[in-house]
């Protein structure tokens, strides 16, 4: 993008019209140049031939041979993919070819006959599920074919000319301690003081809440408002609330939006703690492009979600959202399709004003707003740097509540503002949004994929006409190539079977919300995701019932396959593929069971490993040298020489001074000693922050969230340990199998409760 003449001076456009992105005068002419026409012709011809070859009904031996050849070629080309764009794209296309072949074969050779409705109807349903996921596969390939890797863009010019930024931190029911961390980090953001304004937008203390009919709730709201007002005064943050809780989060932000005037708006969720450099890394983009409305950054989570926690993968495997933030969003960015994700994003006020603020027709106001602005020609940018640290839902039911809202919102968008028919969007943008929205129909295809083998195993329905040779020559190459492709594209971020596991875990409960939305698209209302909940003891989640039943059904299905295999020799060629499919489903179902059998979880701050020299000074002036070993938003763990054990036992709050480094300034704050343990010949001292004043709060926040280098290291450490495809399968098994003992022990009780119509 060429910088506009006013790049280094004015960010806020003098008028809305002036802020509209201007089409480059030569773009249209170039689009129709002879060269591009010829290139398009070549592209279309080669794409047509590519599809024709994929559709060619060569025999199964030829097909299998081609698949093997393609996978081998892709394996070799994949070695050069990081360095050579062409090698990456060739690899992707070759592997996709196998899937194309499978799909055409599936379409032409495996559907039950129409005159057999008992098989045809479920067969077509299964095919429809495959077809939708195939369309998603295609659009996803388009999205990620040419991703952009951006670097931070610092603001340029005289700081006095930098755009002013309003930081909006909407809150509804979060605890003050949680908010304190976020607010403290926000005020620490490295940006000219006169151009940075932090707002706590409290929807938990609105006039409506204060006047609630229930006196207890009204009193609680009043206390909340007073507490947060005091907190804001202490941190020099503007507390803002509103008369009524209308339009949920979007309404809250819009209310503040009208009362503020910053050129840019930084939106942070209440539990999203920003780094000090968040604005320095992003504001420059707005200076470079006056048509830019959004810079989105990834959401980096410091706590495990229920899957990560219950399977123990958090420390070893990248989180679920990393594929989206580090593979898909850079791909979307290429097509100017990167969209607002609700937090950790900087937006241009002028653009928002053009559409009347944040949209509130759906419960995913973020994506909706981005869709509106993209359709009006505004541009977006995605910066793949973790610049905030947030919290994920920690219990399975809060996780499901969050995903239900996202699903509802995306389905609302699909129905109410379908990108395929939305005026103003470019074709690539339509495909990008379509891809994003289609994903949220996983609740349709995932259970179908999972349960389809039961149609044959239990009822003998032949909904997918296949035999062993076809299975070997078409299905296995497809599955392998698809897994290889996934591994190739996202292997560092998403390990085998975990995508399927997440979809499976969400699908049953999300489907209820999704179906309700399909029937009444305008009904869903915004529900705040609960964070910081805890699990008191080991046991099945209240939402575990469908997973238990599905697992049992699949076990019965596998047994039925064995029975059929023994008693129907003439059908063995069909039974074996079903049994393999059923087994894979069962493996996934067992994984699901291992997740919904939740481990006891106490709430605690997540810690990051550091290695910084520090000094602990007591009230009597005694100072001892210590080492800061790890840090969390709540405190620091120190390593101390054992000879100071007695000193550490005093009931006082010493002052911790962490020494400066080349990159970071020294930090001084009061701490409280909670425990002292001897580990490996060294005293391990747990401390909590006990700030003496605002300065301590700010410095502690700056220390903890000062920069995201540690986060990058944390992410990279997990990515470099990515296994191969088969290693990933083994990893999955090693995460699930050890949990099954507990699960099986608890299963009879859970079943008993299910049979008596209680939650397990």
């Amino acid at each position: 993008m060429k910088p506009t003449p006013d790049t280094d001076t004015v960010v806020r456009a003098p008028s809305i019209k002036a802020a509209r992105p201007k089409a480059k005068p030569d773009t249209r002419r170039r689009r129709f140049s002879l060269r591009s026409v010829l290139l398009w012709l070549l592209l279309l011809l080669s794409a047509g031939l590519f599809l024709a070859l994929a559709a060619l009904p060569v025999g199964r031996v030829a097909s299998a041979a081609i698949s093997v050849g393609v996978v081998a070629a892709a394996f070799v080309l994949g070695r050069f993919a990081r360095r050579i764009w062409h090698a990456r794209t060739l690899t992707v296309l070759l592997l996709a070819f196998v899937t194309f072949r499978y799909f055409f074969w599936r379409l032409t050779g495996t559907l039950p006959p129409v005159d057999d409705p008992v098989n045809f109807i479920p067969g077509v349903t299964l095919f429809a599920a495959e077809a939708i996921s195939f369309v998603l596969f295609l659009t996803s390939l388009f999205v990620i074919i040419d991703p952009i890797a951006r670097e931070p863009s610092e603001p340029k010019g005289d700081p006095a000319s930098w755009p002013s930024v309003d930081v909006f931190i909407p809150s509804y029911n979060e605890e003050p301690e949680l908010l304190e961390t976020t607010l403290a980090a926000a005020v620490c953001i490295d940006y000219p003081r006169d151009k940075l304004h932090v707002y706590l937008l409290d929807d938990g203390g609105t006039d409506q809440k204060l006047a609630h009919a229930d006196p207890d709730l009204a009193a609680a709201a009043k206390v909340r408002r007073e507490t947060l007002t005091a907190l804001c005064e202490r941190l020099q943050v503007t507390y803002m609330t509103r008369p009524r809780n209308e339009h949920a989060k979007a309404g809250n932000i819009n209310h503040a939006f009208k009362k503020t005037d910053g050129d840019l708006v930084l939106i942070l969720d209440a539990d999203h703690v920003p780094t000090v450099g968040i604005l320095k890394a992003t504001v420059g983009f707005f200076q470079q492009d006056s048509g830019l409305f959004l810079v989105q950054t990834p959401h980096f989570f410091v706590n495990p979600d229920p899957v990560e926690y219950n399977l123990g993968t958090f420390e070893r495997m990248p989180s679920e959202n990393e594929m989206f933030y580090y593979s898909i969003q850079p791909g979307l960015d290429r097509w100017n399709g990167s969209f607002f994700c609700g937090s950790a994003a900087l937006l241009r006020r002028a653009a928002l004003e053009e559409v009347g603020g944040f949209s509130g027709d759906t419960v995913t106001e973020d994506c909706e707003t981005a869709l509106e602005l993209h359709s009006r020609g505004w541009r977006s940018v995605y910066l793949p740097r973790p610049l905030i640290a947030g919290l994920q839902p920690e219990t399975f039911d809060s996780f499901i509540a969050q995903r239900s809202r996202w699903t509802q919102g995306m389905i609302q968008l699909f129905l109410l503002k379908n990108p395929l028919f939305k005026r103003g969007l470019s074709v690539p943008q339509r495909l990008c949004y379509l891809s994003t929205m289609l994903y949220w129909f996983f609740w349709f295809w995932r259970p179908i994929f999972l349960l389809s083998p039961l149609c044959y195993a239990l009822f003998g329905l032949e909904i997918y006409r296949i035999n062993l040779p076809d299975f070997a020559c078409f299905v296995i190459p497809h599955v392998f190539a698809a897994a290889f492709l996934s591994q190739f594209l996202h292997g560092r971020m998403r390990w085998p079977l975990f995508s399927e596991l997440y979809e499976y875990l969400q699908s049953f409960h999300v489907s209820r919300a999704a179906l309700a939305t399909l029937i009444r698209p305008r009904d869903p209302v915004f529900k705040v995701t609960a964070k910081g909940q805890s699990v008191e003891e080991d046991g099945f989640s209240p939402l575990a019932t469908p997973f238990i039943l599905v697992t049992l059904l699949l076990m019965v299905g596998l047994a039925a396959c064995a029975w059929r295999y023994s008693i129907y020799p003439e059908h063995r060629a069909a039974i074996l593929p079903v049994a393999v499919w059923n087994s894979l489903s069962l493996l996934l179902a067992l994984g699901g069971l291992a997740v919904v059998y939740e481990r006891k979880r106490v709430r605690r701050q997540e810690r990051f490993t550091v290695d910084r020299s520090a000094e602990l000074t007591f009230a009597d002036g005694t100072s001892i040298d210590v080492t800061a070993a790890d840090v969390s938003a709540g405190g620091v763990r120190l390593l101390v020489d054992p000879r100071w054990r007695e000193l550490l036992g005093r009931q006082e709050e010493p002052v911790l001074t962490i020494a400066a480094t080349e990159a970071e300034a020294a930090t001084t704050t009061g701490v409280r000693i909670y425990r002292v343990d001897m580990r490996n010949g060294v005293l391990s001292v747990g401390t909590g922050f006990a700030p003496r004043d605002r300065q301590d709060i700010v410095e502690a926040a700056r220390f903890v969230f000062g920069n995201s280098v540690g986060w990058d290291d944390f992410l990279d450490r997990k990515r470099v340990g990515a296994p191969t495809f088969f290693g990933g399968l083994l990893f999955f098994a090693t995460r699930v199998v050890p949990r099954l003992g507990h699960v099986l022990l608890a299963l009879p009780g859970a079943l008993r409760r299910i049979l008596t119509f209680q939650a397990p």
Partner: protein
Amino acid sequence: MAAHVPQTAVRPLMPALLAALLLWIGLAVPALAADRRVIPLSNLRDGQPEVTLHGETETVALRAILPPVAGLTSVVLALTYENGIDILPEKGSMAVYINGSPVADLPLAAFRGPVNAAITLPASLIRPGENQIVFQTNAQHRAICSVRGTYDLWARVNLAASSLTLVSDGGVPDPDLAMMRHLLAASDRAREPLAIIEVGSEADADHLGWGAMVAQSYGLLLGDQTPRVVAVPVPAKGAAPVPALESLPLPGGKNVLIGTRDRLAPLLGEARAAAITGPFLGVYPIPPGGKAGAAGGGFVAIASGRTPQEVDQAVMRLADVSRPLPTQTAMIVADAAPPAAPPPRPVQAEGRYRLSDLGFPTVQHSGYRYAGRFTLTLPTGFAPVGDRAILFHVDGAFEGNLGPGAVLNVRVNGRPAGAMEIDKRSSGIIENGEMPLPMALFRPGPNSIDVEAELPPGGGTDCVFAVRRPTFTLLDSSSIEIPGFARLVTLPDLGTLGNTSYPYGGVAGDEPAPPFDLVVVGRDPAWTGAAWSMVAKLAQRAGDLMTVVPYTGWDLPPSDNALIVGPVAALPQSVFTAAPLPGDRLAGLLEAGALIAQASARGEPMPAADRRALAERLRLGWSGAGARAPLRTGLASPPPLAGAPGSAADGGAQSRWQRMAGDVKETAGAGGGWVPEWARRGMAAAARYINRWTVDEAPADVVALTENADSLPEAALLQYRAPGNEALTWTLLTASDARSVERAMRSLGDAGLWDKLHGGGALWTSASTAVTTLEPNRPYQLILEPFDIGNLILILARNLSQRIELLFALLLGTTLVLTISMRLLLKRGHQERSGS
């Protein structure tokens, strides 16, 4: 009604019956002269004159066409049969059915040698025209009650020694036109050839063409039996005294005389000739006595007219078997419409067919081995993709105490195609059991699918305790599912020719095969007869009359597909330009084969040493040791290969035939008229290039043909691509001399060699029942339905399935181009978006 007359029962009654018969004859003779018509059962089918029924139960049906006889008084079915020694007599029988009614239940106790049985049938049971004789055996092993034991069970009916005798008061009445068709197909004269009488010593194109039409209709009337047609020359006026019609030396009772009135008049006589006042059809009986009329019912049919055009009309009306002829002895053809196309033969295209649709009823078999058969008829051009399969969905049931190893086997065209394990663990019900049958085993035309269930008993093989035998039921709800296949003909292929007549006849794709040139080179009538026999057989397999353009002699190479018949030494060199064997070597080979076959026919087989010496001389000649030496002094030195030995073509007649063929072409082409000619030519050119990718040329090894000196061929049927750019097919039928071709054509039918044809060439001798097959040396492909995208895709898939390296290279190339074009298109946008 049924006469169960086992041999053992017949013997004590014989003297009494004989006496009664003699008395009856003695009384009856003065009153009337009885007609006794004996039909050997060997007349009812081609091939070996015997029927063998295997296993515990098997059914064989024979089709007998009986002539109309007046006053039928007695019908006797005489059978000679034998059976294996292992059949338990108490449990073995052979039931005989006539037209569905049981007439005998013969015991299978004939293991000491053949036994005779005579079954007197009520006259009302049979009817003029088509009748069906069915043999059905039921047998059980004496000692081994297991699957293996069933292979010892057999019964054989000696057809040559068995007969159906019709005794009537009036014999066959004088024929009329309607009756003539029955008489043509009647089984009592099945071994007699159809004689087409040729007036004049010089064969002309008209006569060849008319004869070809009549021969085709004869082939259609005969059903499955191989037609034999001979040409009988009669000297024209002036050359020699013309005999009267009644005194013609005819080879049999089935004769057709064709020609213009003027040409036939000397033969017919004034009175008969005067009746020809337009397109004329008539039939005259041949008086009893003499070779032709010995048995009565012989006839000479006349197709004539005042002009060749009127003869055309008469011949076409005679050949049109879809329209009955009137019950009168002569007629002037008033409805001169061209023969109507018969309803298309049912063929099974892509789709699912229940066995009941294929004429296979539900069967229940009690025993240890069931064998059944049904036929799947695939269209011309059936060309499946390499390893795809036709699915056989089996619905069936079995019960009884089955042992391990129970299996349901399926064979396609005699080759193992699939098996389904059935054993005691199964439920007893087979519901939609899926068995893939490789499509490569199927071919265009009829395909025989044999289903065999082996049901070993669970409790050992002791027959004493084998009270309850396993039962197997194959339900007619079972189905065959045919996936999509390409419509592509790969030629040369005598198998396709033998099964479907393509490219000369039949329907290929949506269009009938185009007219073809019938070229006869050779003065001897045997060549004309051979050509007519060929077209008659082709019409039979095509199921319809074909349109021919006749040529006698060789002026120019044919411009269409051609069937060329002539002596190998008289054929011009241009015939062999593209043939798989060089003309001179083929001539030497066939001459040598003729010598051996002739010796065998005389009953003096050539000694093995002489045969080997003969073969050695051939090889020496081919190795270039010297010029081709005459093989035997008795055989005249062959004339030079070049040049056209036949008479100059009758330009007027040929143009008329060409015009008629052109009309057919236009009619046939009307359906596909939307496709411009240039597109057709372009597609043909593309097909030529595809040929280059997909076919391997394999020249025939002539020397290898002499390795087995015991059966050097005396006749050859070669198919190859005509010289030039057009994808035209020539099929050459040749031998060294007229007697050889007569013998060869007879053995083609009698020995059942027609069904053994495949590949690019067949060489055979009447001295043997073996056929030597030549692989196609330069295969080429014809795309049927060339403007059907689906068909083109399937053709491409079929061809690329055989060239995986080509497919892979194409894929890599395409992907590379796609990648590069994407990169070039995306690069600028990427730079703009990333700001780099």
